[in-house]
């Protein structure tokens, strides 16, 4: 079920009404309803893959209990290993099996063994497997580390793993944040719900107006890149940069807003990353739930930024390459990750990776000239990296980059969608004005009276109906 579908437009009010009007007397029944709704939401694509979520939830639930019971260190390590093996085993099989087989085959062929006949399986990737796998893993690791008491409430735990707003594309919630919210009695909060609705509306605008319109042109330019001039390829890369932001942050906004309707608070996943002044700041603002997951469960255990220069370089490369690989079984994602590591390393080695912790131009309307150029450079580096992320293969990415850096870069682009670029202009302005909040239009309630606020919401709705692009799936569903 997509957030931008009629199915969801019916599903959400029905679950909302049942949740607050029929099942509001008992916390357990409310959790049970959320669990049933989440399984229905997921099963809408393919009910067979529900078994994976159920199995994964069972494993981590019982491992959590066993971890609390065992006192011996080796037993605890064994239990944690079991959780990691099961979860990453599923992920590895469904997502990476064919990639590894194919890569090994190519490696053997390069070494001169030409008779290798690869066994590739026709595997369907279960939607959202990378997201819920990381969520359950975080539970087992936190219980192992003693940061979290294991739960004995199986319904709450299963609902935490499969919570429908963030099940298929995040934010990847930590058990320490989300699970306790299933234990406490939830009461309807007017301000929280109105805010949730507002965030849903903004998320839909990002997805249906910005992302889907950009996708229309970006898909064409990437698919036929050899026929286009360098300047058009640059436009294509720019449009994809906006598409992926609108798509993914739009999804996160709808997910967070939907959760708020049920009195849940999810973590912020995007904090206006394209206004970052350096790559380190970009990674503090882009897909925050994943970046912090890798930071806490991979980077810090590896030693983080402590140790000698070699350790720092090694750890930085590991976290970025693994992060790239998390996105998909393709060398393009690995190169994208490595490229970001290369962007990040100079900042780390010069100890300037934490120099831009505050929002740019805080309290001001405009950035300084230095800030403006810093944003521009960071944005350009990001656009370049996205080419590898978007390309179907490394060959295509290299060919695309070669196409950009040709003489035709200075020609008039063949594709220059004025309407879409104008929408992007308006969107950027709103995002800039709202960059100090959790999402761009959050503070509208403080600034404008109700009639103006409502008029603005109607404008967004009209924009969604008037300018909505051809429906595209959410990009991050494939991860």
């Amino acid at each position, binding site marked *: 079920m997509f957030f931008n579908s*009629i199915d969801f437009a019916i599903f959400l009010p029905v679950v909302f009404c049942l949740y607050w009007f029929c099942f509001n007397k008992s916390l357990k029944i409310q959790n049970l309803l959320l669990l049933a709704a989440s399984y229905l939401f997921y099963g809408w694509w393919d009910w067979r893959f529900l078994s994976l979520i159920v199995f994964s939830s069972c494993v981590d639930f019982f491992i959590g209990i066993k971890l609390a019971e065992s006192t011996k260190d080796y037993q605890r390590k064994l239990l944690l290993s079991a959780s990691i093996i099961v979860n990453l085993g599923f992920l590895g099989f469904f997502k990476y099996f064919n990639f590894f087989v194919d890569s090994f085959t190519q490696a053997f062929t390069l070494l001169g063994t030409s008779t290798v006949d690869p066994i590739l399986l026709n595997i369907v990737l279960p939607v959202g497997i990378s997201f819920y796998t990381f969520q359950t893993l975080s539970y087992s690791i936190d219980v192992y580390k003693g940061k979290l008491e294991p739960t004995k409430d199986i319904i709450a735990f299963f609902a935490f793993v499969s919570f429908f707003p963030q099940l298929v594309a995040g934010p990847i919630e930590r058990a320490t944040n989300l699970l306790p919210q299933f234990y406490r009695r939830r009461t*309807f909060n*007017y301000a929280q719900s*109105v805010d949730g*609705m507002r965030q849903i509306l903004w998320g839909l605008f990002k997805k249906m107006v910005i992302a889907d319109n950009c996708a229309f042109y970006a898909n064409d330019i990437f698919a036929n890149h050899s026929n286009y001039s360098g300047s058009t390829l640059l436009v294509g890369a720019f449009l994809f940069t906006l598409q992926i932001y609108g798509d993914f942050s739009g999804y996160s906004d709808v997910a967070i807003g939907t959760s708020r309707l049920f009195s849940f608070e999810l973590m912020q996943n995007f904090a206006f990353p394209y206004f970052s002044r350096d790559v380190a700041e970009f990674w503090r603002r882009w897909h925050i739930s994943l970046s912090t997951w890798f930071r806490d469960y991979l980077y810090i255990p590896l030693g983080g930024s402590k140790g000698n220069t070699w350790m720092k370089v090694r750890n930085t490369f590991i976290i970025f390459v693994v992060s790239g690989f998390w996105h998909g079984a393709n060398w393009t994602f690995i190169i994208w990750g490595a490229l970001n590591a290369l962007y990040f390393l100079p900042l780390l080695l010069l100890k300037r990776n934490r120099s831009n912790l505050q929002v740019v131009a805080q309290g001001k309307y405009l950035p300084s000239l230095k800030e403006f150029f810093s944003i521009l450079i960071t944005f350009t580096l990001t656009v370049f990296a996205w080419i590898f992320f978007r390309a179907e293969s490394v060959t295509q990415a290299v060919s695309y980059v070669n196409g950009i850096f040709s003489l035709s870069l200075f020609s008039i682009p063949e594709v220059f969608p004025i309407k879409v670029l104008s929408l992007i202009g308006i969107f950027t302005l709103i995002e800039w004005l709202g960059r100090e909040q959790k999402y761009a239009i959050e503070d509208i309630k403080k600034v404008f009276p109700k009639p103006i606020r*409502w008029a603005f919401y109607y404008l967004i*709705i009209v924009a969604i109906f008037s300018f909505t692009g051809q429906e595209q799936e959410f990009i991050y569903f494939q991860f």
Partner: protein
Amino acid sequence: MKKFLLNIFIFTFLSLILGEVIVRANRLNQEVPQRTVDNNGIQKFIPNQKGYWATGEHSWQVNKLGWSGELPQNYDNLVSIIGDSYIANFMNPVECHQNIFLKKQLPEYNFVEAGRPGVTFIEAVEISQNLTPLKPNYHIIYARNNDFIESIQEVRNYSDRTQISLERAKIIPGQLKYAQAKKILYNWKLAFYFFNRLATPAAENKESEINSKAQKKFKHLAKVEKLLELTSDRYDISNIILTLHPDTAPAIVKKAQEVGFKTILLEKKEENWSFEHDNHWTCYGHERVSVQVGTGFKKAFNSVN
């Protein structure tokens, strides 16, 4: 909670009004004519209605006889053109109707159209018999695979279309279905806008899927053959020429000829007869069809004359 629900209600209510204004002001929907059933049990449009097609690029008008399309200057040497939505042709301006194009092909004849979305083959034949006050000399009936299948009640029961029961050899006249609900839907432009956007594409896809499947393997051939036999026994078909869509199953064409129908099997030599998101013919498509029909008509009836 009360405040939240009240706000949602007011916001939604105002949204509906705003949406209605936008849809009406921008003419995002086509207007749909109201229907009636005449004394002969023929379902047609209420006469003298006017409306516009989506985006308001052109308007349509129902004539005094209750059909779309202009009436001829005089009714001598009259030929009727009967069919479904392809002939009702609300999606094109009046100058793109078959009667206008055929008049150019066959200037010695006058043409009157009797088209309505959903007309089945048997209903088209029934209409041809009930146009007798106009005394058409000939009838051109446009049909597709589905029009034959949908004529047979035992295959698919459509209470709003005229059908025939093969077992009882009886015509079952179509009745107006959900007339009031449809009237509300067509007048509530915003609801109709969503209905069109969400429901129609699926229906069209289904229809084209059915058509292509039907041509590959025609399931109900025996019943359609019986339908054609019954039609030829029951009606005077000597002055009817069946114009069949290019994807019509060859077995139907053969059987129609065997029972005495004159036929024109349209040949689709080009791909661009239809609209991009709609199977109906464009103005160009209608013009190309009329050339083939004109030639086929001359062949079929000039030899008789």
